């Protein structure tokens, strides 16, 4: 037993060393990971970092409106005198939260359906896949716009709307994994041992098809953040005084020609966040796909 444990630990160390090696080979992925780490820290410690946390909640000081960036207001102030730096930092919370929730929700809808379609096959497969076809025949974002409009304008509904238009991608992905895995001997063996279908699907197939899902999810994080910001920009997502980046950009439209800082900073943060997730997603794809791995 002890010997087993030792080998296992050794393998773990080897594995960790391998990952570090891969990261060294791909500086952009490392940069992406570091940026995401910083953003997560900003989101968690926002009340400690933001100099005027009450401004993020919407307290206004009209006498200090549209001040340019300076020592007391690092990113300047908006049209209601609120500190842009504090609001942009708090915006990290919303965007990362939205990304996480939407991706999890889409996975929660898409993965079980994909497993069922791939493993059961036949009529179940046919029905589920035709439904995904219909959802995928809308251009990206359009369906989210329509659903968000009809559900009512707030951030929660925008997230539901994005998830509803996002899940079919995961269904397709996991279905193709399930189809190729279910032919494999270890699934046959599990079946022969009388393992329940449910357990085979979630325990054996799902666990073995995680890597493409993780890659796809990390790539989607950036797109989800952009889509939700776009909905807010159209007035469908976050509502004032929420410090959401897309919403800030929308209100800044009336002022940005005289107060450029108002639109520059929320946009830069959004760009960097999405860029970081895209770098990491790109890197993960290369790690997981031996054909693309540049070693």
């Amino acid at each position, binding site marked *: 037993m002890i010997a087993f444990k030792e080998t296992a630990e050794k393998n773990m160390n080897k594995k960790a060393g391998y990952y570090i090696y891969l990261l060294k080979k791909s500086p*952009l992925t490392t940069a992406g990971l570091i940026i995401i780490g910083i953003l997560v820290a900003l989101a968690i410690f926002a009340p400690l970092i933001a100099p005027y946390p009450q401004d993020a909640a919407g307290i206004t000081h009209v006498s200090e409106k549209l001040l340019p960036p300076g020592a007391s207001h690092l990113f300047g102030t908006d049209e209601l005198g609120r500190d842009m730096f504090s609001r942009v930092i708090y915006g990290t919370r919303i965007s990362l939260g939205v990304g996480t929730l939407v991706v999890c929700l889409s996975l929660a809808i898409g993965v079980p359906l994909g497993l069922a379609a791939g493993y059961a096959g036949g009529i179940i497969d046919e029905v589920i896949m*035709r*439904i995904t*076809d*219909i*959802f995928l*025949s*809308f*251009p*990206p*974002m*359009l*369906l989210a*716009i*329509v*659903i968000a*409009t*009809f*559900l*009512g304008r707030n951030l929660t509904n925008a997230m539901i709307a994005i998830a509803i238009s996002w899940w079919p991608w995961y269904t397709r992905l996991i279905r193709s994994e399930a189809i190729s895995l279910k032919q494999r001997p270890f699934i046959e063996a599990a079946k022969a041992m009388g393992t329940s279908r449910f357990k085979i699907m979630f325990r054996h197939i799902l666990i073995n098809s995680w890597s493409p899902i993780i890659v796809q999810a990390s790539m989607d994080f*950036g797109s989800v953040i*952009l889509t939700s*910001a*776009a909905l807010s*920009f*159209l*007035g*469908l997502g976050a509502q004032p005084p929420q410090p959401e*980046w*897309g919403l800030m*950009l929308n209100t*800044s*439209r009336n002022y*940005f*020609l005289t107060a*450029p800082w108002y*639109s*520059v900073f*929320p*946009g830069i943060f*959004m*760009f960097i966040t*999405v*860029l970081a997730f*895209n*770098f990491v997603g*790109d890197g993960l794809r290369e790690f997981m796909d031996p054909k693309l791995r540049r070693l």
Partner: protein
Amino acid sequence: MWQYIVRRLAIGIIILFGISFITFSVTMVLPADPAARWVGSRATAEQIAQARVELGLDKPLLTRYAIYITNLLHGNWGLSIRTHQPVLKELMTYLPPTLELIIAGMLFALALGLPLGIAAATRRDGWLDQLCRTVSVAGVSFPTFWLGMILQLIFFRYLHILPLGDRLDTMLDMLSPIKHYTGFLLLDSLFSGNIAVFINALSHIILPAMTLAAYPIGLVARQSRASLLEVLNEDYVKAARAYGIKERTVLYTYALRNAMGPTITVLALSAGYSLTNTFLIEALFNWPGLGNYTSSAIITMDYTAITGITILVAIAYLILNLAVDLILALDPRVRY
């Protein structure tokens, strides 16, 4: 070949029914009462009830879906709640400016992305290759509307060389009247020899088209690089080089022509993304197209207009995908 086309069309029609069912069911979960919106906020309960009958909202669901489908097929897409005008007619007036913008954006993307991709492929791992990789990741990471604002700041506010928005300077269409043939302002003014309008319209389309192009530029550069690299490894390219044919001829006549297929596919598929991107860009540049129409429909909860746009865009997307497949099917090497 014909069998393939017929099958694709049949699937397309089934999907259209699915789309119409989704748009129909979305309007069903509407929390706000469309009848109340139709008659306005000062209406009495009686007037609302009457509007409910007029709009057919009192009938059972399936009947309503059947009515909805027949009306759609007859070109009766309902009246806009906001303007009380036929939705289909309104959509047709707002479509040409949006198409003009999308086509200009695609041309921009091709004109910038393709040379970048070619340069990256021929000088692999050089600085242009690095630039190509950066542009392709950055292009898809830009929040489109933010990029538009930054371009407005640079070219309007600081350099004073391009207009802020709109499709033409105000008053210009009064000074030199425009004849409308296609609804495409650039084509119309060019054909009628109205150079003043043409140049003005051109200066107005540059910024929104550039903003729209940001996303496909990266895709085009990346795809043309990848497929060119693949083709350059083929035996016939090696043979052509061994014959001593000029490198330029090898690259542009032999390799590029065969590498264009996937590039065009990527560009055409990204047009679907661009279509929804125009919703943001048109709002920003005050471009009088479908996107702007959508934004106002969203703000006023004009649900007939929104479902109309959804169906129109879904049809456009379907045709686009079909067209891409058919163009590729014309290639004798692709067989179905």
